[in-house]
């Protein structure tokens, strides 16, 4: 019995994957657990292992092509076995026309497949693959009327980005119509008409699509508000250079120190270590901190686990390892998911202050700027201080103004006088 190999869901947010490379050819033998292909998800390049042993009968999705999660990308079976009998799409069709000669049907199917390939070239994969795509939001348990699902599918609207106005939040026709009018949840941004010819068209990578989708989702569905404090970094600057003189195990960065102190602050303020779950607020039991890492064609936020239980040197080593592997796209999904909060630092670019977009479902994000020398008043005297500005973006559904402010005040105190973390 031939077995369909489906595009696996390699991350929580993955909806589509691209086959980078097939490591097996049609007709070759594959063993269970053997790597048969390399797949680009929205976050990383991953190896795809075969779940079954047998002969790779057919490669459905060729190298360089994308397929929706759950779509059939290859078929494994016994040598010589016919593949046409099972390619999912046509099962239903076969039932309806049982009297049709098999040969004719096969020919028709081949024709259809040819047509499919041509049409994919014409940039309409969404429509062609819709049959094999899982219903939008099935995993996210989005409630929508059948008509709304169909309309969303037809117009490429992401149901997860919408909120329904029907009973129990059901997404109904009028919600889709409203979304279409406003353009919310559109998977692809409207194409802007420019008279002059464009210099270059950049094809979207999985990562670029994921960034676009998640940032739009966050900015349109998470009510952000922002808190900014200025922190006197004199002590930290001194402390850091001393630490790096004292030991050569790891070169500690300001970010490493901030990760540790953020963990401390979260320990004290569990309300910030929470996320919105639709019908409730979930408080996390652990403190995992995400670190935004810029890549050539995007960014990713590897998550350092249990930062409250790790020393700064340990954190520093892990952060370096993650950043390195992130740049090589070798992170595993579990390494960039499940953060409590994310720290995004643009200080190295001399940015003094900015606000960041929350990385859902996290409850907040910290944006840290450059440490600059400027006059500060200390004990009534103006002196040259080293200051840094931190802006916290909060999800108001989870973190209220005062809650965020208290967190930030403590974070500032810890940075200014790290000794307080030992009290």
């Amino acid at each position, binding site marked *: 019995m031939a077995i369909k190999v489906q595009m696996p869901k390699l991350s929580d947010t993955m909806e589509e994957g691209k086959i980078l490379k097939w490591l097996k050819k049609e007709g070759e033998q594959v063993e269970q657990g053997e790597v048969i292909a390399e797949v680009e998800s929205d976050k990383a390049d991953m190896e795809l292992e075969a779940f079954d042993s047998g002969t790779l009968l057919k490669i459905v999705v060729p190298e360089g092509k994308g397929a929706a999660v759950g779509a059939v990308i290859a078929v494994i079976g016994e040598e010589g076995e016919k593949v046409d009998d099972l390619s999912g799409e046509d099962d239903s069709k076969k039932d309806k026309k049982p009297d049709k000669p098999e040969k004719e049907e096969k020919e028709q199917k081949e024709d259809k497949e040819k047509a499919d390939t041509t049409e994919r070239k014409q940039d309409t994969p969404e429509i062609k693959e819709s049959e094999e795509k899982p219903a939008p939001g099935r995993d996210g348990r989005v409630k929508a*009327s*059948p008509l709304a699902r169909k309309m969303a599918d037809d117009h490429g609207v992401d149901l997860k980005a919408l909120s329904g106005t*029907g009973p129990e939040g059901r997404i109904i026709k009028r919600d889709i119509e409203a979304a279409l009018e406003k353009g919310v949840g559109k998977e692809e941004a409207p194409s802007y008409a420019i008279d002059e010819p464009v210099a270059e068209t950049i094809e979207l990578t999985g990562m670029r699509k994921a960034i676009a989708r998640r940032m739009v989702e966050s900015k349109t569905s998470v009510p952000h508000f922002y808190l900014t404090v200025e922190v006197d970094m004199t002590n930290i600057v001194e402390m850091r250079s001393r630490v790096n003189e004292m030991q050569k195990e790891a070169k500690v960065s300001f970010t490493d120190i901030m990760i540790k102190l953020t963990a401390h602050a979260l320990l004290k303020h569990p309300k910030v270590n929470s996320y919105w779950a639709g019908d409730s607020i979930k408080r996390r039991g652990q403190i995992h901190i995400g670190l935004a890492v810029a890549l050539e064609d995007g960014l990713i936020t590897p998550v350092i686990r249990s930062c409250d239980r790790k020393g700064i040197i340990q954190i520093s080593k892990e952060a370096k390892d993650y950043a390195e592997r992130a740049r090589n796209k070798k992170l595993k999904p579990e390494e960039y998911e499940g953060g409590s909060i994310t720290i995004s630092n643009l200080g190295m670019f001399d940015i003094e202050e900015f606000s960041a977009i929350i990385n859902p479902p996290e409850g907040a994000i910290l944006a840290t700027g450059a440490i600059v020398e400027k006059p500060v008043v200390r004990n009534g005297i103006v002196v040259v201080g080293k200051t840094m500005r931190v802006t916290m973006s909060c999800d108001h559904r989870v973190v209220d103004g005062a809650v965020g402010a208290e967190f930030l005040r403590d974070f500032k105190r810890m940075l200014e006088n790290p000794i307080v973390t030992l009290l």
Partner: protein
Amino acid sequence: MAIITWREALNQAMAEEMERDENVFIMGEEVGVYQGAYKVTAGLLQRFGEKRVIDTPIVEASFTGIGIGAAMVGLRPIVEMMTFNFSILAMDQIFNNAAKMRYMSGGQFKVPMVIRGPNGAAHGLAATHSQSFESFYSHVPGLYVIAPSTPADAKGLLKSAIRDDNPVIFLESEVMYGQKGEVPEEEYTIPIGVSDVKREGKDVTVVTWSKMYYIVQKAADELKEEDIDVEIIDPRTIRPLDDSKIIESVKKTNRLVVVEEGWPFASVSSEIITRVHQKAFDYLDAPIERVNQADVPMPYAANLEKASLPNVERVKKAIKKVLYIEE
């Protein structure tokens, strides 16, 4: 067009068919000398004589069986039930002989007969005499079931039923006999198994038949004031059920309410809703609603009887529910 009552329309249909075909005859309780319990057969005894308008004793199983036998040997009986509640006594004849004779004799015997009479609740007839039978009879393969709403449909369909070679259950209503409507003056028939768009609208589809049609029309008139545009589809024939116009309409409005006089469990509305789910699932924007009689034996108390039956308010509420309009 002439404006006549349901009663007159049925009377005309039978008289015309008796005139047309001498094999057509009428049999039942009080159909002759008394001119019909509800005067539907008025004048027929005088016009066609005792041989073709036969008063029977109160023995539903027997005269239904006699009708089936007569049909098997080539006559075309119209058997009148004083009400369909009494047809329960003849169900063995109807289910096992009328419905199955053609099948079990390998087509050697046909049963061209019509069993007709009032169906459903009237007023104050209590639990045993206020039942709707369309789901009972349409459950059985081999029977046609017709339940029209207007005098014109009633006349055209009764004529087709009399001419058809299969046993037909023809459902009327005591409270509809006086209902007037336009009926063509020239000879016409309406084919069995063809539904009708009774009112065009764009917002919601309501499927209903027989006397519930008048309740739905009233609800639709009232909702028009609130800018709600109701489309009414009357299947007219319950079995075979023509769902084409229903599906087409649901594809347009994306919402459906079925209004049926009888109980909800295993009902005609169940069948319609199943078909719409199968054939128009992707077009539905709201769960389908239905309005049926309350799932209880009909109360005798007038206020409870009224509360038990579908009414304008319940129909309006169901329509608003599928439109997601909160009140």
